[in-house]
């Protein structure tokens, strides 16, 4: 059975290849069957492996073949399977399967149906390779693979040039992180002599002391890669624009799986981070800052997908915060629950967009509660989980993060407080979305109903979003045991109360209307502040000024090929001399004799001068 682990990424990959090569010969039904079925089989195999693992929790490694060997360096195509791998694989294949199923209805009328599933299957394969890889090089292969798939899917509707721009932006910005990560890999290899993830941990124990500068640099470089892929400050700008892709893609790639790859990477290499406390603090601070920044921004957006995108950035910030404070298990737990409820929310928004003529603006929706009940309940459950209301899955994971953050020496309470502010904002913006979209008067009538291929994934995800918190993830072997001292009870009570307060505030402002904030929001300062938040804290503008424009300027300057001017100058000089000299060859003998006499005089001058 263990040897069959290789099939799990292989099946979606083969399906993808088949769809690319034989798209023209397949019926729509066959395409859908292939696209969804391949991921389904992968999910079944994963489930089987998971059941085996839970019965006999034994970590194993399957080496398929030697990928490359150069001198002392060798890299295998090998898969490593432990509790962390299982969690990730379950999310990818399980949630992935539901999203594939949803896609068959969402993309029903698209001309490039086969291309869509080819990309999506390829993404699943690459993502599986990423999480199953035994060494960082193979992981990097998957890492780049998902990057390419993300690029292809963001720009899926390439006829619109804005989508192409968003795709390029997503690719280039993450590329910056990827480059940092590659540097990190080089550094690790030169320092520790291996890229094998387990061997790295052992080598680090031999060679490094806690607090050395080398692990700090390596971990910061890896953090760079994680920040790029997981859309954290300062490389988060690509994710809101990546919403240009089809909505199920946003659910799968830009909410549930790929964007959490950075979290997985840091969790996977946590043994290295333990040698670099400063890098851990950096992870926590990046996470918290991103979480707050994105939450404020989400508060002012009116595009349903952009709200969710900023919410994703914010939630991944929580995961980073968890990793940074050493709450590895909580971080991965939140990754999983987030995958459930955010996929649910994205698919729900997909259903709305599908039924509302591709409308994205929440203020043009409203009153959908009675018209789209399944979607309404999906959103209710998803938003409750997102806001971390008690008993939802999000509550369990976020509560753990906040409590563990509180316990960090020194800055712990501050981290906790920051997290609480974020949690409050999360509750406000998520229920603002629910109240605006589903209550109040109807602004746009839905023109079709959600079919069973949408309803089933939504329902299943609803269950997961509600009940996911009760799952105990089998990662005790992977991460060191957290020394968990239960903090004072009031801390816990406050943590639980804050999201509820947020929901009430949202209700009072957006639905009940008891809280009149118009005067406040219409004031000059608040207007400016709202604009500032709406623009994503002007970070895009900043990058545009600092990087994009100078780069364009440089490119424009180089387009004129300034270096060629030097060669053109050479040509011009040569031609000019040629013309001057040729003019001298007049054919007149007296000139020729003059030249000879001149030459003789020069020779005489040179020779006689010395004597």
């Amino acid at each position: 059975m263990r040897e069959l682990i290789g099939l799990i990424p292989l099946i979606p990959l083969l399906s993808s290849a088949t769809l690319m090569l034989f798209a023209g010969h397949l019926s729509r039904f066959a395409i859908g069957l292939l696209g969804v079925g391949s991921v389904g089989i992968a999910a079944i195999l994963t489930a089987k492996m998971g059941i085996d693992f839970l019965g006999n929790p034994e970590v194993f490694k399957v080496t398929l073949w030697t990928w490359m060997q150069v001198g002392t360096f060798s890299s295998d195509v090998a898969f490593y399977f432990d509790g962390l791998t299982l969690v990730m694989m379950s999310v990818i294949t399980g949630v992935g399967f539901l999203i594939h199923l949803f896609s068959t209805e969402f993309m029903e009328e698209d001309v490039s149906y086969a291309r869509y599933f080819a990309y999506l299957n390829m993404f699943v394969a690459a993502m599986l390779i990423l999480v199953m890889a035994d060494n960082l090089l193979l992981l990097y292969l998957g890492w780049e693979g998902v990057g390419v798939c993300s690029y292809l899917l963001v720009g899926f509707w390439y006829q619109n040039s804005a989508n192409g721009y968003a795709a390029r932006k997503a690719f280039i910005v993450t590329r910056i992180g990827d480059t940092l990560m590659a540097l990190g890999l080089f550094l690790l290899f030169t320092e520790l002599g291996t890229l094998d993830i387990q061997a790295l941990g052992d080598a680090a124990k031999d060679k490094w002391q806690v607090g050395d500068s080398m692990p700090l640099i390596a971990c910061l470089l890896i953090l760079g890669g994680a920040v790029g892929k997981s859309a954290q400050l300062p490389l988060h700008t690509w994710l809101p624009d990546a919403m240009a892709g089809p909505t199920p893609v946003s659910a799968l790639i830009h909410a549930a799986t790929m964007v959490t790859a950075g979290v997985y990477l840091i969790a996977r290499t946590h043994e290295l981070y333990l040698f670099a406390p400063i890098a851990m603090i950096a992870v926590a601070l990046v996470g918290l800052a991103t979480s707050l920044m994105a939450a404020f921004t989400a508060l002012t957006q009116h595009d349903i997908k952009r709200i969710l995108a900023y919410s994703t950035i914010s939630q991944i910030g929580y995961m980073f915060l968890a990793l940074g404070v050493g709450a590895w298990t909580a971080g991965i737990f939140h990754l999983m629950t987030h995958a459930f409820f955010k996929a649910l929310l994205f698919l729900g928004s997909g259903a709305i967009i599908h039924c509302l003529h591709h409308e994205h603006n929440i203020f043009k929706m409203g009153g959908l509660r009675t018209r789209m009940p399944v979607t309404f309940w999906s959103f209710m459950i998803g938003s409750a989980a997102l806001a971390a209301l008690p008993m939802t899955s999000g509550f369990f994971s976020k509560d753990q993060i906040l409590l563990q953050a509180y316990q960090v020496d020194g800055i712990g309470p501050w981290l906790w407080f920051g997290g609480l502010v974020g949690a409050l904002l999360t509750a406000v913006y998520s229920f603002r979305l629910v109240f605006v979209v589903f209550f109040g008067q109807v602004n746009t009538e839905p023109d079709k109903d959600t079919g069973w291929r949408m309803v089933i994934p939504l329902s299943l995800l609803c269950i997961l979003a509600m009940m996911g918190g009760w799952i105990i993830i089998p990662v005790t072997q992977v991460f060191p045991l957290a020394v968990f001292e239960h903090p004072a009870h009031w801390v816990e009570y406050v943590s639980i109360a804050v999201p509820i307060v947020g929901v009430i505030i949202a209700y009072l402002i957006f639905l009940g209307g008891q809280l009149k904030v118009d005067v406040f929001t219409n004031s000059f300062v608040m207007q400016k502040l709202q604009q500032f938040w709406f623009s994503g804290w002007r970070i895009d503008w900043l990058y545009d000024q600092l990087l994009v424009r100078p780069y364009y300027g440089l490119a424009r300057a180089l387009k004129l090929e300034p270096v060629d001017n030097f060669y053109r100058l050479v040509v011009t000089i040569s031609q000019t001399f040629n013309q001057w000299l040729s003019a001298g060859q007049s054919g007149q003998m007296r000139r020729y004799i003059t030249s000879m006499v001149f030459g003789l005089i020069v020779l005489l001058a040179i020779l006689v001068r010395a004597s």
Partner: protein
Amino acid sequence: MNGSQMQALMPILMLSLTAIVLMIQASIKRDEKATWIITVVGILLALWGAGYARDFSQPVTILLQVDNWGLFFTALVLLASLVTVVLSQDSFSSEGGSKEEYYLLLVLSALGAVILIQSSHMASLLLGMELMGVALYAMIAFPKKGLLPLEAAVKYLVLSGCASAILLFGFALLYAATGELSYKGIGEKAALAYISNPLLVMAGTAMVTAGIAFKLSLVPFHMWTPDVYQGAPTPVTGFLATVSKGAVFVALARIYMDAELHQYESLILALSVLAAFSMLIGNLLALLQEDIKRLLAYSSIAHFGYLLIVLIALTGSEMASEAVTFYLAAYILTTLGAFTVIARVSREDQQKSQISEFEGLFWRNKIQATALTIAMLSFAGIPLTAGFMAKFFVINVAIQGSHWFLLSALVIGSAIGIYYYLRIIFSMSKTSGNDIGFRDRSGDITALLLTVLILMLGSWPQPFIAFAGGL
């Protein structure tokens, strides 16, 4: 003069004999075919003589010096003459329709070149140079068509006369200073004379240099070159470029070495100036030239600039004498290769030496086009051709002597050179019109042989280097 000395003069005797036989034959019955055969046989005999004389190397009177080096160039010059005779057979016709006298003049000119190569005395130098030159004036003016040959001949005559006058004046000054006219004699006395009367020695040297620089068409004594190259019948141009210039350069090298002129810093400076200007101006003038004969005229100016570097670096390098031998041999073979093709393509028609006339040559006559391509590549100094090895030698010698200034001029000049050499190759590979094929295969064998020689010198030079080193 004993028997051994007569044997040493075998090539000169053979050429003289051929000249006499040709005169007698012409007086009995005019027959171009017979004249041609006698000329070819005579030159072949002279070639044999050059080999034969190797066993009798010695000074012959005060005037001539027979040695292996000289005999090698004698053979080379005779080979060039032979190629010229073969090319002349049907490339142009004279006023009367036949050209028996032309072959006589060619033999006399070759004789002058051989004497020039073997001279060890100012008198024999002048004798050889004038014999070669006077015959050449007539050869240039020989064709009946057009005014250009005549114009070229007159220009060459007048300017060459001026140059000879300067040269003679130089001899006179040197004689006044040293009382000697043989190279070695001047070399022995010059040092002393320089102390007592530096002005005379230096002025004399300057004028001798100027006279020879004219014949080698070094800048600024180069102005005649394109006009004469263009105006002369193509085989004669080839003869002028190879036999005349090669022989004069050998004579210059002999004077330079035997008269020990390399000890004068100011002369080296003067030669450096001539070399640098020749390399740069020669190549620049050739850059946009549309007439291939004029283009090669300018190119030859540059090539003698390169050769002059070797002379300048003579004392600083062990390779220098080999470098002179190799470069001159490569230059003569390459030039012959080029002019063989040009003579075939352009015949006597002046219009046909335009580069545009060579368009599509590859599709009309592959052998000729390949030969010209190889010749151009060799001129440019592309590896696997003789020109590359030759340039390699020159650069090597220049580096050993630390002549960085001249080296940079060489590099710049060569870079410009590649442009116009490649231009000709491009033009040949164009497919445009001009398909009026010439199916005449008469020059193919000569072209092929020369191409093989050029490639051999470039790709497998070791035997030749060993041979040149032993001279």
